[in-house]
């Protein structure tokens, strides 16, 4: 099987895997990081080391990193936590239609609880412009939530331009950076984002692990969503899973080291793939007009039906629509928001390349896709 679904999940980097091993074995570091004995202390040290590693990748302070069970939880904590804490500021949220389901479903839930949400439609380049956001603000807007990188198309939002404008207007800014961390350089010292969601398993770290950046200066406050022993400065209770945290820390450290070089390599591979696919008539690159992360290529194929296209490529792991929504069988709302009709949105493939993708895999994938698109088009009545 050719794996080109890195945006859905990535394999655990071997170095991260190795780093986790001592915390999966007996030998004194298996303690509960909240315990005061040696086993607990060793675990706690490992946790704090990892916290610094994650902070370093995004230009944050270690104390600004709150561990969660994943970006879904981080998104939930950011939105629900901020809305609850700042209830006296208002009850309006501005977000985009192309956010990950974790943000959209949380917003829909907040709507059932009396929050008003504005969902901005992206332009033809797949992005929501800063001007659109600013125009949508009302005196009661508490929070804006906008992803840094869209998981389906790879387009990069203008977070650096929007953040200062929102800071000026006293509106909290949450950014889902699940697809951005380790792919593009993020420096929160210079970009005044207040809350930022991170996912380990999108960056060669373990599943079930994530973090939420919560700015200290100026201090962003949240009402905790998981109550209990008061872990993570009271923001997120629950025994810390040492081995997972260590894995995330190491993965983020590696990502920082490799970022530039890996980005360049992926850009080359992606161009190689696109060069083959664009030889076909009636293929469309989704998100063409905007800057994109190097590893994602989302293409719509005219004249073929989506289910048949996917069924023709059982040896190619890619996706159409985000993994989290593919179980429901809907056609991608992101592509429909871009202006592709239902049919074309359904006949789209997202190729997301990664650290271990080879040129041979790209060539094989291209060959298979081109052959099958031709076959299906030849099968179709005129």
């Amino acid at each position: 099987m050719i794996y080109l679904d890195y945006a859905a999940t990535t394999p655990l980097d071997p170095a991260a895997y190795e780093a986790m091993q001592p915390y999966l074995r007996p030998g004194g570091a298996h303690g509960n990081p909240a315990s005061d004995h040696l086993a607990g202390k060793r675990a706690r040290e490992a946790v704090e080391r990892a916290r610094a590693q994650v902070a370093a990748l995004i230009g944050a302070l270690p104390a600004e990193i709150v561990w969660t069970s994943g970006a879904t939880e981080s998104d939930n904590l950011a939105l629900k936590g901020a809305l609850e804490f700042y209830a006296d500021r208002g009850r309006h949220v501005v977000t985009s239609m192309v956010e990950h389901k974790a943000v959209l479903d949380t917003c829909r839930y907040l709507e059932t609880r009396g929050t008003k949400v504005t969902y901005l439609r992206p332009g033809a380049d797949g992005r929501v412009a800063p001007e659109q956001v600013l125009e949508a603000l009302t005196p009661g807007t508490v929070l804006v939530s906008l992803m840094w990188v869209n998981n389906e198309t790879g387009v990069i939002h203008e977070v650096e331009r929007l953040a200062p404008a929102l800071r000026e207007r006293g509106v909290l800014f949450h950014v889902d950076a699940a697809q951005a961390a380790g792919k593009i350089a993020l420096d929160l010292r210079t970009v005044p984002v207040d809350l930022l969601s991170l996912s380990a398993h999108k960056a060669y770290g373990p599943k079930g692990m994530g973090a939420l950046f919560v700015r200290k200066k100026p201090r962003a406050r949240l009402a905790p969503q998981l109550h209990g022993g008061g872990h993570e400065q009271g923001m997120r209770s629950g025994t810390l899973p040492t081995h997972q945290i260590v894995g995330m820390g190491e993965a983020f450290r590696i990502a920082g080291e490799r970022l530039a070089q890996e980005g360049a390599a992926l850009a080359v591979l992606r161009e190689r793939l696109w060069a083959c696919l664009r030889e076909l008539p009636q293929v469309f690159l989704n998100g063409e007009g905007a800057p994109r992360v190097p590893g994602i290529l989302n293409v719509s194929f005219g004249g073929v039906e989506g289910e048949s296209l996917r069924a023709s490529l059982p040896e190619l792991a890619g996706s159409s629509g985000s993994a989290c929504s593919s179980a429901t069988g809907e056609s991608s709302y992101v592509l429909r928001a871009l202006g592709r009709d239902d049919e074309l949105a359904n006949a789209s493939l997202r190729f997301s390349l990664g650290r271990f993708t080879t040129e041979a895999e790209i060539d094989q994938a291209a060959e298979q896709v081109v052959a099958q698109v031709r076959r299906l088009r030849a099968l179709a009545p005129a």
Partner: protein
Amino acid sequence: MIYLDHNATAPLDARVRETMLPYLGGPYANPSSQHRMGRAARDAVETARAQVAALAGASAGEVIFTSGGTEANNLAVKGTALAAPRGRLLYSAVEHPCVVEPMQALAARGWPVETLAVDGEGRVDLAAFEHQIKGGEVRLVSCMVANNETGVIQDVARLAALARRAGAVFHADAVQAAGKIPLSFPDSRAHLMSLSSHKIYGPKGAGALFADPAVPLEPLLHGGGQERHLRGGTENVAALVGFGAAAELARTELAARMAHARRLRDRLQARLAALPGLVSFGARAERLPNTLQFAVPGVHSATLLGLLDKQGFAVSSGSACASGTDEPSPVLLAMGVPAELALCAIRVSVGKDNTEGEVDRFAAALCGLLAGLGVSMPSVKPAAGVV
């Protein structure tokens, strides 16, 4: 190091680790993805679900996977309260912070919240409870199966039956009980029951809530639709696989583990019985076979724990989640233990890999330390064979 703090966390069983490694290093697909690798990951999660269900005689369809016991308890408490019209929420006076704090958070938002009194041994007073719920409008009653500090076991089936008669949902936190005593979700008559992987020699980062599908639950985590829309988020395949394996071992080895734990705990208890004035908490109630919480009057736990740690013994005073605070345990206070004595609490929780030798060494070390602290001791003859 001699590790005697299994109620705080249990070290990952090597056999469980073996089941996890392939999912850390190998098939790594997102279980929601529709391709073949996604389906392999999905199958692994479903196998684990069946294994966890089997630990408590539940059906797979009743299992909601979470990131741990804290999340399971939060989902049980808040999920139930938010899905029903506002009403009274009751919880025992000896619950874990991850039940108490969600309850308090709801109280701050206007829910009427009450505690259930316990007797001197830490058992919920059934007659008082029956009287308490007569007032009606009770939405949720939460009472743990076994306490993490004292090990005391509650009569959950009776409590649940009473709660049901009053039209309330009953939640039982079984995080400490699972894998230590026989557990049956159906027989407990609870609607909701929480479990934690790392308490049963599984990996940290996984837990479960058994939930009767008839009970409306508002999810805590939205997004992605996983766990039948009750808990969004990409599944932590490796941790769930490990949780499943740990559950299977806990089920098949339960009798042996219980016997072993009881033998060690009772041995320790006998060794310590000679210490003057030593108070055991909950010792007259039915307790988890592995737990012994006691206090030597006048000797603060902070002092003793530090000294024991230096000598290589890992034990605790009570809840790990609350360590680092200088407050006496609310559990002990609820049992009527005076605050001064509660501040002297030491909890030993043995595990399946502890030996009699380790227990003896601990007892000897403890006695030695107490002697050094000036606690007058009768002469304690070491048991035969112990150095």
